[in-house]
C-alpha cells in the first residue's frame, strides 16, 4: 500500500484530496450560517456541536447551509468534510439576545430592618437556553405596594449579576424585579416583623386562676409580631416556679396560671424580657 502510494505520488496523483473547510466567524445561536469548501465531487459532511451531531452528503465547492435549528446551542462546533480524506475546522457559536432571566431571590421571608438580608442573583439566557456571557445591564428594583424602596443597576460579569440589600421597615409583601431590556422576572419577599421590642403584661385573678396577657406585641419599628411567636410566662411563688408557653394570636399572647397564693409573673419572648407583676392570693 505504501509502495503504491509512493508510486502514485511520484506520478503526481494525490491519494488524499486537501479540502479547505471555511467555517463561519461570529455565528450566533439560532441564526442560519453557511460553511464553504474547496474542491469538487461528492463528500460527506459532519457537524458535531454541543447539542447536535449530523452527517449528510454534500458537493464540494458548494456552500453547506446550516439551518437556524442546527446551531441553536452556543458553544464549540467541529465541521468535518470527508472525501478521500477528512478535513476539519472548529468554530464557535455565541448566545443570542436575552430572552429570559433566571432570577434567584433569598430569603422568601425576611425580618424588617435587617442589613444585607435580601439577595438576588440573575443569569440572562437567550431563547435557546444559552447563557449570555457578554456584559449586559440588569436593573434590580425593590418595591412595596406604595413605593419604590431601592433599585440597583448591575452589569453582568461572567454572565451573572447580583445584589444584596437591607430589608425595609414595614412588614408586608415586597416585589423584587430584575429586568434586562424588555425581559423581566419578578419575585416576592414577605417582610415580617422582627423580634419583639418590648413586652408589657397585665394579669387578673379569676376563680380559675390568674389570667395573664400581653399588650399587643410589636417589633421596634411598630410592626405586629407574627402570630405563633411564643411568649413564655413565668410564675414564681416562693421557691415554686411554673412556666407556660403561649403563642401570639392577633398580636396578643394569653395564658392562665393555676395558682392560689400570691405570685410574681414575668414574660419573655426570644431575648426580650417583659415587666414583672405581683398578683395577690385568693
Amino acid at each position, binding site marked *: 500500500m505504501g509502495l503504491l502510494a509512493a508510486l502514485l505520488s511520484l506520478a503526481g496523483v494525490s491519494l488524499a484530496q486537501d479540502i479547505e473547510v471555511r467555517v463561519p466567524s461570529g455565528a450566533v445561536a439560532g441564526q442560519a450560517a453557511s460553511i464553504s469548501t474547496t474542491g469538487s465531487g461528492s463528500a*460527506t459532511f*459532519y457537524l*458535531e*456541536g*454541543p*447539542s*447536535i*451531531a*449530523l*452527517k449528510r452528503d454534500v458537493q464540494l465547492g458548494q456552500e453547506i447551509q446550516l439551518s437556524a435549528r442546527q446551531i441553536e*446551542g*452556543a*458553544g*464549540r462546533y*467541529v465541521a*468535518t468534510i*470527508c472525501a478521500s480524506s*477528512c478535513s*476539519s475546522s*472548529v468554530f*464557535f457559536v455565541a*448566545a443570542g439576545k436575552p430572552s429570559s432571566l433566571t432570577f*434567584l431571590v*433569598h*430569603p422568601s421571608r425576611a425580618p424588617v430592618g435587617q442589613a444585607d438580608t435580601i*439577595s438576588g*442573583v440573575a*443569569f440572562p*439566557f437567550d431563547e435557546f*437556553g*444559552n*447563557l449570555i*456571557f457578554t456584559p449586559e445591564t440588569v436593573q434590580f428594583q425593590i418595591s412595596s405596594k406604595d413605593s419604590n424602596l431601592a433599585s440597583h443597576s448591575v452589569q453582568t*460579569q*461572567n*454572565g*451573572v449579576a*447580583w445584589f*444584596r440589600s437591607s430589608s425595609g421597615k414595614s412588614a408586608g409583601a415586597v416585589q423584587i424585579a430584575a429586568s434586562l431590556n424588555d425581559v423581566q422576572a419578578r419575585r416576592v419577599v414577605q417582610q415580617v416583623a422582627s423580634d419583639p421590642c418590648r413586652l408589657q403584661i397585665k394579669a387578673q385573678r379569676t376563680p380559675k386562676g390568674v389570667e395573664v396577657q400581653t399588650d399587643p406585641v410589636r417589633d421596634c419599628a411598630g410592626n405586629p409580631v407574627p402570630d405563633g411567636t411564643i411568649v413564655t410566662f413565668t410564675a414564681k411563688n416562693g421557691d415554686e416556679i411554673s412556666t407556660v408557653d403561649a403563642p401570639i394570636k392577633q398580636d396578643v399572647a394569653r395564658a392562665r396560671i393555676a395558682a392560689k397564693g400570691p405570685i410574681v409573673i414575668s414574660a419573655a419572648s426570644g431575648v426580650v424580657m417583659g415587666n414583672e407583676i405581683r398578683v395577690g392570693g385568693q
Partner: protein
Amino acid sequence: MMRIRIPMICVTLALAAGYLKAADASPQVTLNVTKAAPRTVEPLTQRALLRDYKFAWTNLAQALESNSMESLNGLFAGNANTALKDKVGTQRQSGLSSRYSNQSHKVDAIFYAPEGDVIELHDTAEYDYQVLDGSKSIHSEHAIVHYVVLMTPGADRWVVRQLQAVQHF
C-alpha cells in the same frame, strides 16, 4: 515453572491494560476556589463539587461514546441535560459517536451565590477528542476548550445545569 509464569504475565498485562484504560477514562480535575465571590466556598463544598464535576465528565464521556443516557446518573439537569440528551440522540441517529480521553480540567470557581444555591465555574479543559462514524475515525484532535459551568446543589450532590464552551473567558 514456565507454564505458571506465562499466564501470570498475561494476567499482569491484562490488569495493567485495564488499569491504563481506567486511568485514561478518569478525568484529572483541580478546583481552585480562591476567586469565588461573594460567598466563600467551604472545604466540604469544595470536595463535593470536585467529586461531582469529575463524575459528571466521566459520565458525559461514557454517554457520548456509548450513545446512551443511562450512565449520566442524574448529574446533569436543565439545559445541560437537554443538550446532552439531544446530542446523544442525534449521534445515535447519524451513526456517530465521540470520545473524550486523557481529560484534564483546571477549574476556577468564579461566582458563588450569597445563599450558596448556585456556583459558576470556569473550566479550562484539555482532552483528546475523537469523532467516529461507526468505527472509522473522522476527526481527532488534542483540544483545549474553555467551559462556563453552572452547578446547583441537589439532595445529595451538585448537578451541572449549564455546560457551555466559550472562545475565551
